[in-house]
Every structure is written in C-alpha cells, then in structure tokens.
C-alpha cells in the first residue's frame, strides 16, 4: 500500500487562503480523519486530494506518482459526497455498477460485482430499487458501495454520516471502521464531529484556519493537545490562565503544585474528568453554579474567581452538592497539560 503525501498544499480564493501550506503523509492502509469546525479547510483539502479542485501551490503524490495535475476522473479515488450524489435516473444496482459500466466491463460482470457489493454493505436484494425509495442509512450504503465498486486506490468521504440520526450514526461509525479494516484501503474522512474522529481513526488531523494544528493518534491528541484550540476542540476542556508562583502555578481560585510555566505565563488544559470535586482540602476553591446530570456522568460547574470550571464524574464518585455550595477542586497534576 502506498502512502499519500501532501506537500505545502495551498488553496487561495482571491485573498483568502482556504488551505494554507498543508504538509501531511497518510500511510497506506490507514484510516485518517480530517477534523475541524466548518470553514477550517478540511473539505477543500479533501476535494484537492480527489482532483475536484486544483491547489494554488504544492504537490500531491501517491507513492512516487505526482497527481497534482491529474484530473479527477483519472485518479482512481472513490469518493462519497456529503449529499451522497446518487444518480436519480438509475436504480441501486445501476448506480453501483456505473463505474464499471463506463469502463466497458461486460454486463454480467457488472451485475455480479454490484451484487457482491450489496452483500458487503448489507443491502442484498435491493438492486432493482429506485434510489428515491431508500432511507437515509440505505442511501449511505449505496454511496459507499458505489465508491468502492472499481477497487479504488484511495477512499474519500466528506461528512458521510452528518445526515443520519444519532443512533444510526454511531452504528455506521463502527461499520465503516470494520469495512475499512476488512478491505485494508487507505481512507480519509472529513468530519466536524470529534467523537466520530476519535472512534474511527488511526490518525486524527485537527485543522483550523486552513492549517493543520495537530496530526496524531487519537489518544495522544486527547492527552497531549498541541495547543489551546486542539485542547478545546477535542473533548471538552477547562482552559485556565496560569501564572508562575512559588511552588507551582497560580490559577483563578488557588494554586496547583508541581507544575511550571516556561516564561512565567501560560494556559493550562485540564479535562473535566481530571478535576475532582471535594469537600475537603483542594487546590482550587469556588462556588457551585450549575449541576448537569447526564445519567452516566454528572457535570458540576464551579465559579472560581469569575472563571467557570467544569468537573465531570460518575454519580457515585462525587459529593452531593447543590448550586450555591462552596466546594474545592483537586487537579490530577499528571494529566494537566501546559499549553504554549
């Protein structure tokens, strides 16, 4: 399996740089998620990989082959669009068989392959249906089957699950991952849902403002965010301003021992689950303003010198406090991340 390499890829629209100097290597056979808020450039980047947009600068290579100038229809990359883009004038089987039909394969082979793919995506027997009569989830599968029909070198998906309801989305995330593992195909998915990225990806590429902020395995992105943006975007995080003080770092509401800041001032990222609510001795003191009971977890919002901090814990692991109560927060120092 060959690697996909992006070298200084930039896309400008007039003065605006939608994608700004992206360098990325996607190892062959991996599942990569381009993650970021809307407008961060992830879809534009995907479209450049597909050949639907031309980069203003930079090169795109698959192994040794420079694909930058190669038009979309000759790259051999299968793509699933956000709108799915199924052909309304063709049946399910005709949609799936389309890439083979235009390559001149015999009808029997096209038919057989379409049926194999329908089995693969668990839609056996749906071949003769009109695409208009399918549910969202079923259309999703047809789009996937169609993109894979001609055994593409790369599999690209643009927000493939955004139109599905929450439960179906979660099920599809797992299915997509399993499918990819079975086929071993290099896959790049664009999404704005960080939980989706964390579930499916071997590598998460966090983007904002057209640039890559961090590209790493999900656990490292979560535990060691490269900057405040990543820390806040992945999962939720408490971001507090910290100042160096004797014995540790001074933060609103108290002092955290055992941590230091290069340069005297910095931002500290503390995940809610690493901030423990306690009625006894604590690093930070504050007042409870809001309690959100989500069933499996309870989130407590604490005001410490004007800054709101969130602590998350299982119901059994926290003291029962109500809004208005004075509490303490203990920081798991090992998990806190000092950000530049």
């Amino acid at each position, binding site marked *: 399996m060959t690697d996909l390499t992006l070298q200084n890829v930039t896309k400008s629209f007039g003065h605006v740089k939608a994608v700004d100097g992206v360098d990325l290597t996607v190892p062959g056979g991996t599942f990569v998620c381009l993650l970021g808020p809307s407008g961060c450039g992830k879809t534009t980047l995907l479209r450049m990989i*597909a*050949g*639907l947009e031309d980069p203003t600068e930079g090169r795109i290579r698959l192994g040794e082959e420079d694909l930058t100038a190669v*038009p*979309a*229809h*000759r*790259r*051999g*990359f*299968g*793509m699933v*669009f*956000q*709108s799915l*883009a*199924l*052909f*309304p*004038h063709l049946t399910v089987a005709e949609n799936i068989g*389309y*890439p083979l*039909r*235009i*390559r001149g394969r015999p009808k029997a082979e096209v038919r057989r392959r379409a049926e194999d793919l329908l089995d693969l995506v668990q839609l056996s027997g749906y071949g003769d249906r009109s695409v208009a009569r399918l549910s969202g989830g079923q259309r999703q599968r047809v789009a996937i089957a*169609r*993109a894979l*029909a*001609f055994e593409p070198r790369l599999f*690209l998906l643009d927000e493939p699950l955004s139109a599905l309801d929450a439960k179906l989305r979660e099920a599809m995330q797992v299915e997509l991952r399993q499918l990819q593992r079975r086929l071993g195909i290099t896959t790049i998915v664009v999404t704005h849902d960080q939980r989706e990225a964390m579930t499916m990806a071997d590598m998460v590429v966090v983007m904002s403002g057209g640039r890559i902020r961090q590209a790493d395995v999900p656990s490292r992105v979560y535990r060691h965010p490269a900057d405040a943006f990543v820390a806040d975007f992945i999962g939720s995080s408490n971001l507090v301003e910290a100042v160096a003080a004797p014995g540790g770092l001074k933060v609103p509401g108290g002092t955290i021992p055992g941590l230091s800041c290069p340069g005297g001032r910095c931002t500290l990222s503390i995940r809610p689950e690493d901030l423990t609510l306690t009625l006894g001795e604590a690093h930070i003191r504050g007042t409870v303003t809001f309690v959100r009971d989500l069933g499996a977890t309870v989130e407590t919002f604490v005001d410490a010198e004007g800054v709101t901090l969130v602590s998350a814990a299982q119901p059994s692991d926290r003291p029962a406090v109500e809004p208005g109560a004075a509490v303490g927060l203990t920081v798991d120092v090992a998990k806190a991340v000092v950000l530049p």
Partner: protein
Amino acid sequence: MSARLAGRLFMGAVGVLLAAPVVVLAGVSLNAKKTLVFPPEGLSLSWYTDIVTDDGWRSALVASLTVATLSAAIAVLVALPIAWFLWRRIFPLAEIVRGLGLAPFILPPVITALGFLSFWATAGFYGQGFTVLVSHGIFLVALPLVTLSMGFGSIDREIVEAGATMGADDRTLLRTVILPLMTPYVVSGYAFAFVLSLNEYIIAYMTVGFTVETLPIKVFNSLRYGYTPTMAAVAVVFVGLAALVFGLIARFGDLRRLLGALDHRT
C-alpha cells in the same frame, strides 16, 4: 356560509367561467346545420371530419402541424446551447444572450410580428414558406430556454463530480448523466413550443399570411368570409391537444416544479 364552502364555490365559479367558452364551442361544433346555435339543434360530427376531409382545412392543418413541428425544433436547438453554456461556464456577459432569447416572447406579439415583417420584406424573402419557420423558431426560444435552464439548475453538481471521481470524462458524463437527466426538460420545452406555435396567429399572418394559411389564420378568415362550425371544431381540437400535451408532461414530468414549485411531491 362557512368559509370552506365559500372558498369551494369561488373555485367552482372560476372553473365554470374558464370552461364555459370551451363548452359552448364544443356544443356549437356539434350542430348539424351550418348555423351558430347553442344548444345544438341536431348533432353531427361532420365538422370535425371536415378538418381532414375538406381540402382547405386539411391543408391548413398540415401547414400548422409542419410549422409547429419544425419551429419547435428550431427553438430547442437555439435554446439548448445557451442553457448549457450558462450552466457549464462562468461568463456573465452570456446573460445578455439569455435576454435576447427571452425578449421576442415577452414583448407584445404585434411588435415581434412587425419586426419580422420588416425583416423579411427588406431581405426580399417576404411570403416564402421558410420565413414563418424561422420567425416562430426565434419567437418560441424563450419556452425551451426556461425549461432547460430549470433542468440544468436542478442537476446537483455533486452528481457530476461523483461521476468524475468514478472515472467518467466530460463526454461520458454528458452521455450517461447529464443528457438522461435533461431529457424530460427537452421534451417539455419542445412540447410547450409546439402547442404555442400551433396557436400562433399574428406572426404567421404577418410573415406568410398571404401565401400560407395556418389553422388560426383560416379560422380568422372564416370569421369574415362566412361562418362554419368547423371553426369551432378546430378550436375544440386545439384545446384538447393542448390539454393532452400538458397532461402528458404532467404525467411523465414534474409540472409543478416546471412552473415554480420547489418541492416535488407526487
């Protein structure tokens, strides 16, 4: 009276008024004698058969059908590349061409008719058969132009992109994706133009009125030279034909969307 009943009566009244002239025409066309009477005294279908058996009416029928068939084709052939270019390319000045295509139809017909009259007279072809073909063809461009623009506008560009990612080059995309999706719009554009050409009077009259008699021209002439129920029969046939064509478009296409609705329920 409840609001609902009043509403229903209103719609019913409008329906009756819209249909009344057609009903009367139908009645008059069935009259046994050559008089203008309603209700008909004695029934006869002879006036309908007259359209094909009587030499004068038959040649008018043939003339009308020929002009309609050919000029609608011309209209579509002129409109198609314009609509295609506007969809395919970014070139704002092309909107001027769209305006030129729509203008002859939006303006009062007398103006367009007079324009063509001056043109053909000056060019020296006044009265020749092909002049009405060209004149109708240009006059009717607006209809397929509107349906085709709508058709192209309804093509989701991501569908075209999807085809490209699957390996289809421009020509294949045109053949396997765009043309199949555009067919209903081409057909309905042609059908609209056909029906309107059939009915068109003033342009035909001013270009070839003295050499060729189309059905509307013959109907008008008959008004002056002597009434015959065949005129009413022709009128009823026209209405029936229009209803048939539009009914077919509705059956095989999405008429509501063609006329401006955004959703497509059936």
